[in-house]
């Protein structure tokens, strides 16, 4: 083992041609996101089965639907991390802006009878305006106070939606989207592939926007606010405005996700307004790795997949035949996810995205230890 790792380590520093080769390799692997995107784009054409991971071939409508949800939540979690991981704002009310996108779009279609494109635009606008208004108020409080106020707003909206004012929201049942108003290519089981591509497009849009925003001058200020807000103030900048920009951008991205969700599930449900929904976003971000480029996306995909599959597992015959001590907790996906979340916080600080780096450091330090032992 040592003879295999040692020369390689030495070669990287001393041997020049090898170094350029690894450099070339790194340059080539820099394009892996594009390659992954191409693979993801072709998924609807694939009939490859992934036993254990999915039920049946990948390209079947059911699996495409699940994968589309995974991608959608990957994007949603990435947008949410704009607040948590990039600016250090712990919002507990993100569900509100997502639900605003879903509900406003659907309600405008149903009540005003406007076409989908106009309704979607109004849904997006509603998300932006709502996040600007409520963010302006919530950001008056700092730290945990901010978290609680965002939670209170979201909860008030959730109660309002569930009370069904004027029969507009449909209360506990929610309301189905009017199929005749939606573009024909986005309705029906035979068009699941289009919905899948739409979810993928949403994920790409969010990734690009977040990456662009984080690299912009505003993004640097966000990073400063996250590290030390007082220091940003001392530099002569008012953090309030920058935080509000992050809040509105994240809220608008969430509203866009809500519109995709409306198309994907064919309706608006009050579950998306609850605090549990925001908490699940939080779980996704922390699970994947907050503040990293790919972490929230990975977390969103993993969480959604696990949520779905754990539900299937809980309902399966294998679980029903287990003794009650094991069966009872297994029958609740939320229990498993909650426990998993606590475990991730303990065992994987930094989430899944930091895992390779952690393993690498662990290996090099172990190798270094061994070298020390061998040297004398």
């Amino acid at each position: 083992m040592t003879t295999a790792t040692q020369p390689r380590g030495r070669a990287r520093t001393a041997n020049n041609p090898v170094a350029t080769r690894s450099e070339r390799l790194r340059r080539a692997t820099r394009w892996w996101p594009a390659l992954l995107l191409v693979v993801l784009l072709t998924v609807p054409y694939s009939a490859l089965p992934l036993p254990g991971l999915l039920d049946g071939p990948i390209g079947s409508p059911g699996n495409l639907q699940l994968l589309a949800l995974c991608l959608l939540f990957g994007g949603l979690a990435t947008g949410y991390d704009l607040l948590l991981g990039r600016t250090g704002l712990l919002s507990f009310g993100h569900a509100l802006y997502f639900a605003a996108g879903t509900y406003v779009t659907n309600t405008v279609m149903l009540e005003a009878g406007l076409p989908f494109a106009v309704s979607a635009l109004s849904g997006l606008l509603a998300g932006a305006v709502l996040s600007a208004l409520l963010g302006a108020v919530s950001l008056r409080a700092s730290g945990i106070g901010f978290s609680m106020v965002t939670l209170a707003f979201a909860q008030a909206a959730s109660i309002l939606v569930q009370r069904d004012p004027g029969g507009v929201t449909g209360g506990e049942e929610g309301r189905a989207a009017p199929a005749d108003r939606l573009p024909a290519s986005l309705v029906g089981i035979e068009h699941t592939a289009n919905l899948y591509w739409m979810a993928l497009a949403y994920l790409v849009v969010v990734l690009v926007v977040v990456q662009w925003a984080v690299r912009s001058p505003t993004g640097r200020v966000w990073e400063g606010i996250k590290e030390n807000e007082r220091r940003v103030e001392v530099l002569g900048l008012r953090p309030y405005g920058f935080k509000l920009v992050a809040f509105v951008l994240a809220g608008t991205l969430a509203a866009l996700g809500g519109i995709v969700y409306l198309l994907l599930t064919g309706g608006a449900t009050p579950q998306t307004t609850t605090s549990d929904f925001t908490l699940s976003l939080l779980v996704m971000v922390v699970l994947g790795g907050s503040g990293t480029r790919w972490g929230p996306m990975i977390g969103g995909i993993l969480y959604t997949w696990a949520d779905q599959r754990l539900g299937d597992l809980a309902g399966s015959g294998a679980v029903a035949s287990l003794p009650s001590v094991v069966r009872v907790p297994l029958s609740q996906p939320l229990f498993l996810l909650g426990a998993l979340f606590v475990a991730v916080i303990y065992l994987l600080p930094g989430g899944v995205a930091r895992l390779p780096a952690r393993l690498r450091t662990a290996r090099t330090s172990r190798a270094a230890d061994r070298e020390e032992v061998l040297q004398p």
Partner: protein
Amino acid sequence: MATVVLLTFTGLGLGALYFLVAAGLSLIFGLMDVLNFAHGALLSVGAYGAWWAASGHLPGAGSGGAGFALAVVFGTAVGTVAAVLLELAVIRPLYTRPREQILATVGVGLAVPALLSAIWGSDARPFPGPKALSGTFGLLGAEVPLDRPVLIGAALVVLTALKLFLGRTRHGLVVRAGVEDRAMVTALGIDVRRAFTLVFAIGGAAAALGGAVGGLYFGSVDPHQGTSLLIFAFVVVVTGGMGSLTGAALASVAVGLVQQFANYYTTAGLGDLAVVVLLAALLLVRPRGLTGRLA
């Protein structure tokens, strides 16, 4: 008049429930900077403990008289133990990672209600309260349910006990000083960690008591009762000024009353909204809450 009296008592009863949840939440936050998302779960644990005991599972406990008192004590004890376990097993190992402490309580807050609904089902279970408390009493022409004064009494007892504990005992002094300035107390060589466990135990006991008497108020227990109360307790804590017990007491009365009156005189559901609008308005004027403590 009758309506106003009834609404006042209902609002105060609800406020009492909020206070029982918010008191521990506020102390824990003030001392440890931990927003305990599992606090609602502690309430549910207390409620289920009392329900389980009062349904005849615990020898000596029952739905009437001394048996019911024993059931409430049992529920409170279970909640206290759960709170101490939570502090020792989840909060303490993450001592140096404050944000992760909050996230871990989020995980516990998701898992515990799910576990409760796995064991006893997700539907509400009727709460076996004593017959003596199920009636009403006449006051200024209103028929006020007897459980309202019981709730208010419980909250007043907890408030007085906490005031006495914090003001008159050495442990209370440590907690108070820790809420004020944790770093200084640590620098004086006092083990704040023991105070953490103590505050968690107190908070858990208050929340669990809230769950037990909340069973009387709602007439049933369900796994998600705690979580829905928790959110209004958050509103109370922010409104009152974080870490302040008096602020929490004042704010819970205000929130309970506003909610009840607005729900009655406008349409149902608007009261909950009114509370949040009130919070927003307050924050615009005083970003640090009623008592002006640091948020």
